[in-house]
């Protein structure tokens, strides 16, 4: 039997009433293993105006580089205190901020190694289908060998790399549209 996936539609402007119960600004608890990082930024549209009705969802591996998921069969330890998921709201200025741990590296396809990264889904009114992007970390030695970053035109790669403002404090913006600053989004 072969079916086609149901068509995606926008979350619209009123998704808060259904979805905010899973909001989280901190993906960690006290016992979570790993280096804490605070990531903040702003969502803007093609005019540079703030998008105050967007929502992010974050998915990541734990500090050892293992996903809390049955498809991850690596011989690495799960962290019972880290799920790796967070739904992150934006405020009236389109700003978001969340705390998590820097994930370990995970394997890529064909024997490659991926640099530490977070998978980010972006939802908003006007996005008929959610966007998929990634956050990498400034200064990571593995960034230079990351197989996905290598697929991104060099001049756009920076939009995927969070800038470190202070130890453990990162800045990463979502630019939905634009000729030079537009965030790299993936055809998933």
């Amino acid at each position, binding site marked *: 039997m072969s079916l086609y996936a149901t068509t995606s539609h926008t979350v619209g402007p009123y998704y808060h009433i259904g979805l905010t119960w899973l909001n989280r600004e901190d993906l960690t608890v006290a016992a979570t293993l790993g280096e804490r990082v605070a990531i903040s930024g702003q969502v803007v549209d093609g005019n540079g105006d703030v998008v105050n009705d967007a929502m992010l969802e974050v998915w990541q591996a734990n500090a050892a580089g293992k996903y809390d998921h049955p498809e991850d069969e690596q011989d690495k330890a799960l962290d019972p205190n880290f799920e790796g998921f967070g739904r992150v709201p934006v405020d009236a200025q389109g700003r978001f901020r969340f705390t998590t741990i820097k994930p370990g590296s995970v394997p890529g396809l064909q024997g490659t190694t991926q640099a530490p990264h977070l998978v980010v889904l972006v939802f908003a009114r006007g996005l008929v289908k959610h966007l998929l992007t990634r956050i990498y970390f400034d200064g990571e030695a593995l960034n230079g060998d990351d197989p996905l970053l290598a697929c991104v035109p060099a001049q756009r790669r920076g939009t995927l790399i969070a800038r470190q403002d202070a130890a453990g404090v990162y800045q990463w913006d979502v630019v939905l549209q634009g000729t030079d600053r537009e965030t*790299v989004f993936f055809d998933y």
Partner: protein
Amino acid sequence: MNDKPGYRRPHAGTQPDYLHPAYQSTNLRSPSQPLVFLPHSLSEITGPTIGAERVSETDNDLTAQHEGEPQGERIIIHGRVLDENGLPVPGILVEIWQANAAGRYNHERDLHDAPLDPNFTGTGRTVTDAEGWYQFQTIKPGAYPWGNHHNAWRPAHIHFSLFGPSVLTRLVTQMYFPGDPLLEYDPIYNCVPDTSAKQRLIASFDLEKTIPSYALGYRWDIVLRGRDATPMEK
């Protein structure tokens, strides 16, 4: 180690392009640069597993969240969540939200001049059972005007959000009702060219599910992306 199979790419015409000018909010929010093709790695074939531990058994009854009964036509919506290979998707979170019977959301940004209902929040959630079935009891939402174009009205709809087994099966969509005259004018419903794909967003009346003297039944099945049969590496 051979790579695990990724997920099927969308069938032509069944998923929207980001830019859909008839829906004006897409004009400044859709990417203008080329999307970068994403091979499906471990980061994408995994995903959050949010299951029954966070949902109570009564979270799927939107008519029982307040002291009184909400206004409106009581309905039961049920259906099956399958993947593109026809297999049921058990144990996954399904979240819904909707306007009340008058077409007003219980949301501070909804300024439509229609009454709020103190007995209706419009939020529900459940987890699919072992065979992929879900069910909600609610009231039929009203149509409402929006500012997209002159005399624009959204057809009655319920928003659905589903996770599924991986990041790639994440789906947010809207379910519509049969026979709604507003569908043909709605730029969101019409955001894909494939007529069958659009029609699959419309629930069907289900007499067997209808409870005598109590509630009308509707059936709506949802399909999430399925795995590729063949691994990427041979």
